[in-house]
């Protein structure tokens, strides 16, 4: 739809036996408001390295990027905050009960088939209760095995090398065990010194004479990471099943803020994230289709500070999570479905602060959560409507500190889509949703924290939009895709952590009220002249996100930190036979690094131009693909987060063989 990769995958679908998607009627599995989506070919053409890089191309999204290969990358959708975003990997939510954030930089694009972004929620009622439970969601889907007729194995190997001393080999092996079961194995190793040049320059106002101009090398940003994944996909007489095992381990430097007189830091972090998850969908009878999801996850994090001038830190954290969910849909009439889903989750956090003595103030929290959702969907041909009511119950127990009260919250959502003309795919979409997030373990039990009872943080969304899609076979315009959305969100009882007294003591409380008004526009098109294929996608976001917490604040009514008023992206691709050229542009307008919209906190706009060349070819039966990328082509010195400089121009070369 969007970008082009020539030859290789173009005709693949015709001769592939798809194992999946046998189950249930198509109607029930389709969401009524289409997500923003990047999949297979478009993703390959964009040549992005991590999921975080890909998500920058969605509208309404702000990526928080601390720079470099190993730097933390989180996203904020429609300004409601990082913690309000749910991230789902192969259909099951990734958890981080400790800090509530998922580092999207950890998810490499090596085996990713599709990334979708849903505002509100996936508007599909046959899903687990947790799918209803975030203000917005990202779904990351790994590649599933597909075999050409007569083939029982697929092998893909790739090697990426580039700036920051990057070395990234990976291998993907898919094997057809039987007609009913496929297997897939994927492994990857990423190694990078993370070193890059940063440049700081200041000029005098008016005269533009140089005041200072300095270049340094960003250090302690090294990364050594590996990822292993194994999956089984099967079909049953009346459904499907899948099991996945995932392991990611890394050892990295934490480069820290660039401040006066300090150019290097001693903080290090290693982590191991593992999970095993399974899913099965069964069409039990004409009136009952069910799915079962299960997951067990274990995460380990180790922070250490080797800087002798600072507080000696050597902290280890262990998180465990068990999750089980059942979702059921009951078609009552051809135009009316009802669904019922129940999820259960158990989380614990364990910590070791490497102390010699027996002093231990850590809370050792355990959280059990129950989600129950009742939903209904009506499909009157041109008008589709959904309503859901989610009931969340959270119980927490602690070994130390004060036990928080049990929380129970009802959160409703309504989604609707109306096809305006009978023969055109021109729709009016709208939704309302009120949702909340719980305080994370860090927010409640951080060491040296005075923990008080913290209420959930609520996000309310009103959104309306128009979408138009048109595909034509034999004309100059092959494809047109226009989307326009306007929304108004509020975030209440925002959970805020601040040091409540000098130095060591922190506290978390519910304070903060933010109103967000925004417009997202996107325009995608495909044009073909002869064998030349042009594709483009333009996307623009306007956001006004104001802090209305306290009228006596100096920043009352000011734009909240790091939300630009204007942002946008443009992608243009040109393909000619087995050559392709992709160009992308990302713009983030002026914004402020702190609450007060004053000159001292002003952050200039930044924009980068990225370009990539791709050539595909065959050597006997082997498909080869070579790509060269140049990112930040004009070498702009920019910072997404104040004092965390981003790399200047950098290069990456990748070579993929497939057989």
């Amino acid at each position, binding site marked *: 739809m969007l970008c082009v990769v020539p030859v290789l995958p173009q005709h693949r679908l015709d001769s592939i036996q798809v194992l999946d998607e046998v189950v249930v009627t198509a109607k029930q599995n389709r969401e009524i408001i289409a997500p923003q989506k990047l999949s297979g070919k478009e993703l390959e053409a964009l040549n992005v390295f991590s999921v975080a890089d890909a998500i920058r191309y969605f509208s309404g999204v702000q990526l928080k990027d601390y720079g470099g290969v190993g730097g933390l990358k989180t996203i904020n959708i429609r300004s409601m905050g990082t913690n309000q975003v749910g991230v789902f990997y192969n259909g099951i939510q990734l958890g981080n009960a400790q800090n509530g954030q998922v580092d999207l930089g950890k998810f490499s694009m090596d085996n990713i088939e599709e990334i979708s972004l849903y505002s509100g929620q996936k508007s599909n009622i046959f899903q687990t209760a947790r799918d209803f439970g975030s203000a917005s969601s990202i779904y990351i889907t790994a590649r599933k095995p597909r075999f050409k007729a007569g083939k029982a194995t697929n092998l893909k190997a790739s090697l990426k090398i580039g700036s920051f001393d990057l070395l990234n080999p990976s291998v993907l092996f898919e094997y057809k065990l039987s007609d009913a079961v496929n297997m897939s194995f994927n492994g990857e190793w990423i190694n990078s010194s993370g070193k890059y040049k940063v440049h*700081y*320059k*200041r*000029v*005098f*106002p008016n005269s*533009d004479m140089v*005041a*200072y101009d300095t270049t340094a090398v960003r250090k302690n940003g090294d990364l050594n990471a590996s990822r292993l994944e194994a999956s089984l996909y099967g079909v049953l007489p009346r459904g499907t099943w899948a099991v996945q095992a995932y392991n990611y381990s890394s050892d990295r430097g934490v480069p820290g*803020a*660039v*401040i*006066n*007189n*300090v150019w290097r830091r001693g903080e290090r972090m290693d982590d191991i994230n593992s999970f095993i998850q399974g899913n099965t969908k069964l069409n039990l009878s004409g009136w009952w289709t069910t799915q079962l999801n299960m997951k067990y996850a274990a995460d380990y994090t180790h922070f250490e500070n080797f800087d*002798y*001038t*600072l*507080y*000696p830190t050597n902290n280890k954290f262990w998180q465990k999570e068990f999750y089980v969910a059942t979702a059921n849909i009951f078609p009552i009439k051809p135009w009316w479905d009802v669904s019922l889903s129940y999820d259960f989750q158990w989380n614990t956090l364990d910590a070791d602060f490497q*102390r*010699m003595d027996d*002093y231990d*103030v850590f809370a050792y929290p355990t959280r059990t959560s129950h989600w129950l959702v009742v939903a209904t969907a009506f499909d009157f041909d041109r008008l589709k409507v959904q309503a859901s009511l989610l009931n969340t119950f959270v119980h927490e127990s602690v070994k*130390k500190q004060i036990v928080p009260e049990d929380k129970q919250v009802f959160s409703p959502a309504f989604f609707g889509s109306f096809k305006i003309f009978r023969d055109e795919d021109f729709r009016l979409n709208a939704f309302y949703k009120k949702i909340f997030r719980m305080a994370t373990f860090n927010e409640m039990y951080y060491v040296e924290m*005075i923990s*008080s009872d913290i209420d959930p943080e609520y996000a309310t969304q009103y959104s309306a939009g128009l979408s138009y899609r048109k595909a034509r076979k034999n004309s*100059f315009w092959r494809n047109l895709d226009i989307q326009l959305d306007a929304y108004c969100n509020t975030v209440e009882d925002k959970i*805020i952590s*601040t040091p*409540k*007294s000098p130095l*060591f003591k922190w*506290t978390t*409380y519910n304070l903060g009220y933010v109103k967000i008004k925004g417009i997202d526009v996107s*325009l995608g098109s495909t044009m073909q*002249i002869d064998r030349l294929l*042009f594709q483009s996608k*333009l996307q*623009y976001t306007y956001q006004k996100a104001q802090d209305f917490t306290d009228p*006596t604040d*100096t920043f009352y009514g000011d734009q909240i930190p790091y939300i630009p008023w*204007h942002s*946008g992206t*443009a992608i*243009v691709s040109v393909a000619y036979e087995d050559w392709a050229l992709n160009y992308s542009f990302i*713009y983030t*307008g002026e914004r402020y*690094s*702190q*609450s*007060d919209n004053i*000159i*001292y906190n002003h952050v*200039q*706009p*930044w*924009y980068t131009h990225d370009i990539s060349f791709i050539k595909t070819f065959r050597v006997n039966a082997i498909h080869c693909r070579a790509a060269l990328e140049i990112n930040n082509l004009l070498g*702009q010195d920019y910072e997404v987060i*104040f004092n965390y400089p981003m790399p200047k121009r950098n290069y990456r070369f990748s070579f993929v063989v497939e057989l």
Partner: protein
Amino acid sequence: MKRPVAYIVLIWILGMGFLSCREDEHIIVAEYQRIPDPVDPNSRIAGMYLVNEGNMGSNKCTLDYLDFTTSVYMRNIYPERNPTVVKELGDVGNDVQIYGEKLYVVVNCSHKMEVLDARTGIRLTQIDIPNCRYVRFYRGQAYVSSYVAGVLIDPNAPLGAVYKVDTTTLKIIDKVTVGYQPEEMEVLGEYLYVANSGGYRVPYYDNTVSVVELERFKQVRKIPVGLNLHRIRKDDYGRLWVSSRGNYNDIYSPYGSVSSNLFVLEKKMGYNDMVVTDTIGIPCSNMAIHGDSLFLYSHEYDNQGGESMLTYAIINVRTKEVVSKNFITDGTESEIKMPYGIAVHPETGAIYVSDAKNYVSTGTLSCYDKNGKRQWRVQTGDIPAHMAFLKKINECGTLVFLY
């Protein structure tokens, strides 16, 4: 053939039109604001410097100056006066003092003490001291407390140090190891008294004041005072007033819950050693002594409600009695969210209280007259905290304008 390309280019140009572009980053220039104080031409005090700490990692330590000779408040004067200094003043200012003609700014997370010309705000040099905290002076030498004495021997217990810096050559000439994580210091007689906090050793905080004999520059004694010491000031009666932060009511501490307190140290008749003679029994976060009055503010937490209680008290240092529990008399203390610095004008007795708000936004500085009525309030930088008064020389006290 040309049409699609033209179309894309057109949209492109239209799109670019309303997006603003990036320019070279400018040196940040100071802001000036008039304050309603009458100018007293006979005053010996020219002005007051204020250091805004800036939140950790923000590199937003800034220097403000209140000019009493013109009644103008100047915000962020450092960058324009020192445009060539890469990344400006630095990260987390922790102290400011004036000695002779020089202004000393201790910048904690930038691991340096910045030395400026006190009349112009122009930088003379920087002295690198790891994790430096406070500076005091005695006979041409500057003494800088530092959380670390050097490369770790025992990672769980790095002892702190006091560095000795010559104020003429501006070079480190000596170092003495003191207690754990030393904070403020005070010179009394021939001795330097150092309040040790032990803040890195939770819950086993330090509880001593180190006594350093200045002549030999040796730690001669440690006086047990109270848990987690912070401030130390002398009065006109040869006493030391030492504040303890306690353990923030930590019920899991082996010492039990200990709240903040204020102690008085004095020499016993016939002895040369300072000992604790009085415990005032009032929490103290910061203090300023003016004549017989000790002004203090404190934030204490209520562990149940998670609320912090703010107190603005006056203590008569002669009688050691709490004279007032609120030196702000006009009710404007409710507009201060987080008091973070206090200073008293040496002549007028005006009280300056800074407000750090939520630590990540612009703070304020409020001026109260000696009766506790608010005279004015100005916006400062982030986390306004430390103040120092500049004396006039030959009637010429104005900070030199460069622009």
